[in-house]
């Protein structure tokens, strides 16, 4: 599954460019990481880095409680971008 994973530094660097597609995918409602990965066409492992980075910096947040399969859903947070 992970045999072709990219270097962590490279994945994390992409958070800046992946923010917009992720927020666009969340525009219609909260999604799990596998759902997000499908929506934006990237591996779930990379989406974990981006979602957690965006969560850390206040772009999105998790909904309470995981679903039956053990996945949380994440939703966008209204956030004022730096002027």
């Amino acid at each position: 599954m992970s045999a072709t994973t990219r270097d962590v530094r490279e994945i994390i660097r992409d958070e800046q460019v992946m923010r917009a597609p992720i927020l666009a995918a969340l525009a219609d409602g909260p999604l799990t990481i596998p759902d997000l990965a499908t929506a934006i066409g990237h591996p779930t492992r990379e989406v974990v880095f981006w979602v957690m980075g965006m969560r850390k910096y206040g772009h999105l947040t998790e909904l309470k409680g995981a679903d039956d399969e053990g996945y949380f859903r994440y939703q966008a947070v209204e956030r004022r971008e730096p002027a």
Partner: protein
Amino acid sequence: MRYDALVIGSGIGGMESALKLADMGYQVLVVEKEASVGGKMILLSKVFPTLDCASCISTPKMAATVHHPNITVLTHAEVTGIRRDGADRFQARILAKPRFVDTAACTGCRQCEMSCTVAVPDQFNADMVARRAAYIAFPQAVPKKAIIERAGTSPCTGECPAGIKAHGYVALVRAGRPEQAFNLVLEATPLVGSLGRACYAPCEGTCTRGELEGSVPIRRLKRFVADAHYATGQPPSVPVAESTGRRVAVVGSGPAGLTAAWQLALRGHQVKVFESAPRPGGMLRLGIPAYRLPNAVVDDDIANLTALGVEIATNTRIDNLAALRAGGFDAVLLAAGTHAPGRLRVPGEDLPGAVSALAFLRSAKLGRATTAAVAAPADVVAGTAPDGQTTMTDGVDVCGQRVAVIGGGNVAIDTARTALRLGAAEVHLVSLESREQMPAHDWEVTEALAEGIVAHPGWGVRRCRGAERVTGVALRRCTAVLDATGRFAPQFDDTDTIDLPCEVVIAAVGMAADTADFAASLPTNRNGTIAVDPGTLQTRLGYVFAAGDVVTGPSMITEAVGQGRRAAFMIDRWLSGHELDPVAFDDRLPVVDRQAVLSRQADHSRRGPLPPPAVPGHAPDDFAELEPPIAPQEVRSATARCLDCGVCSECHECVSACPADAIDLGMRAEEIDAEIGTVVLSTGFRLFAADAKPQYGYGRFANVITGMQMDRLLAPTRPYHTVLRPSDGKVPDRIAYVLCTGSRDQTVGNPLCSKICCMYSIKQNQLIMGTLPLADVAVHYIDVRTVGKGYDEFFEQAKGMGAEFVKGRVAHIDETDEGNLVLTYEDIDHGGGLATAEYDLVVLAVGVQPNPEVAALFGGLDLGLDEHYYVEEVNEDLDPGRTTIPGVYVAGAASGARDIPESILHAGAAVTQAAAHLERQRQPQRSAQQERTRVPA
């Protein structure tokens, strides 16, 4: 500086050592390489066996260390060397690395971090989540001050002669902030759109990505931000200083003059630009064809200036500097460019039909040299219909004519392609150089040839033929262009000649400064350029400065922009009575090494660069811009290719965001020498690199993590919101621990037990079962070592909570398609055969390793290491903490694996000896006697 004690490292052992010595009344210097004190303990979830919160225990000690009146703490600093100073004392050299943040002003608000455009792995969260280049180490950091990670200047930024923060605007575009990117370029020059099209982009030539599959299209991204801004129709949003009441005259409105005028206006000076041509812009307006740089873009760039109140007087030639001074200008900048054309110096070059390239391009760009067949360039740019009128100025009309362009540089290429667009029947390019040696950029030559221009490389002009007007050029073979010293000295073979029939000859053979008007008052060089101080650009007349091509001779636009910036900086200092210091102008850090940048990653995925614009396959008949704008979807992939070479991009978002004005990118490293009475080494340990056991898959399988990573997942300041699988964010149902990973293992060169792994694993078992009540936890072990007060009871408690302990080594781990992990292990409790078990998540209980670099600190002194490379204690049973160097002591895990209580105890022993050493220094007579009567162990 003079201290009683130097404590190196501020983990629990270092803090304990420093506090005990300080409480005894000694002056202590603590040097910590990280941005916060606290070491590894502050990053843990809880401590065993009490399950006390690690943060709750650590932070009081951290605060006490930093605020103790007898302790000085240097964080983000490293001891680079220690030598003996006399019999008992030491001299230490410390490198205080710059934080780029004024810690006195910083309030720890994290606004810099929130605005930062560079994401890097967060080492304080075991690389499981991103942090920013501007960051606060972790929420409990002491001091809680921001720091900016800067490895140096990124090559693209370092290479830009204009001083534009190329990495910065690329990072801003990547972050979805094109307007801020536009403003960042404005910090250097108002010519954002022009540079986005016509710059030859030296930044791209040095881009580290070029070592992989091709450089980032930096210039085209600049065009993107310029186009995005100009489409809004809004004036620039830049901070302008209050008016100084000083007036500056700028002579010339090319890149240097416009940039200088912009910079001076930003600094609050009143600026007026004088331009002899009918329209401002210099070579941008008059020299660069519209298919490369439309006039409308130059107009947009110049509008930035006029929005600041800069006046531009066109059709105004300045030939009297004293009159400007008398007219109320406090300073004058000469930036008149190089508008005198070079000459062929052959018979017939003054015949009608022969013209200079500068005059030809100027007429074309101003819309005066048109033909019946094609539109005026200005009209094309404006999008209006061709007017179809025929005008002819400067004595040449190329429509339907055969044109010979003489020269092999970029100007010659521009001239030839312009002639083609004006309807020339044939265009021939005659150059002394061979095709490979032509000074023009190769891609421009390729495009010109594709458009139908006929090249004649390796020929020189002997004469222009014709009686009343040009009818052709006589050429002779050029056998060499340069002499042995590299000087321009063409050699010809007069027996090898041809005639090239043509009606128009355009000479593109160089440009020179036209400074005759100023020669009486200003010294000039042999080539006519103005003589200036190269660092300050000041002329012999104190109030007159000069910049751009009129100083350097013909150069790139970016070089002229850089000259303009420098001149404005110096003029501003001169006007305000400051010293003209060339060093103060360029505050860039050294450029980072590109190989070092590439080596930050184990591998790089290849990302296709933007395809170059299609080479035109036919003779164009208008001046429509050739290069298309970069498409929005291309912008993301283009910026994602940036490697953040300097880490900090210098985008200046933190500078704008900081409410305390605490960001100081001008900070530099400082070397500090300290006189020390005693040294306490508390440099701690390193964690075993789990990928050194490749059979366990760490680094390849996302769901194989280390014990420290699990501790971070369990900590209050964790990278995720709970314990999740890194592969897909799923809550794990089955979790396995593999004990003794990298400990008690001769295959990795570490036969020692790490002492802490069993206990921290048991601690994590209990915490996981509290956090994830439904999860199953299994521990694969060889032995479980629980030596310590309450440790065994702690172990039994974990078993009672449901943790399963499986005796036997794990042979290897494999990954399923779902990201689950299959452990193959020796099942000793069930007969000793091989067995397998599948888990969602595997935690490798990695051991500890020594930190042997500490020995290198002692030049000329032999700091002993034991056989396992821990700091050697002379007699660890009876004399704990004493090293092989008198006066140097070791505290905590630097001398061997220890848990937290043991480290604290050991630190106490070490500082007791250190204090005794200091007392012997204070009472040398008594000390000597004590040494003599000391009973050996």
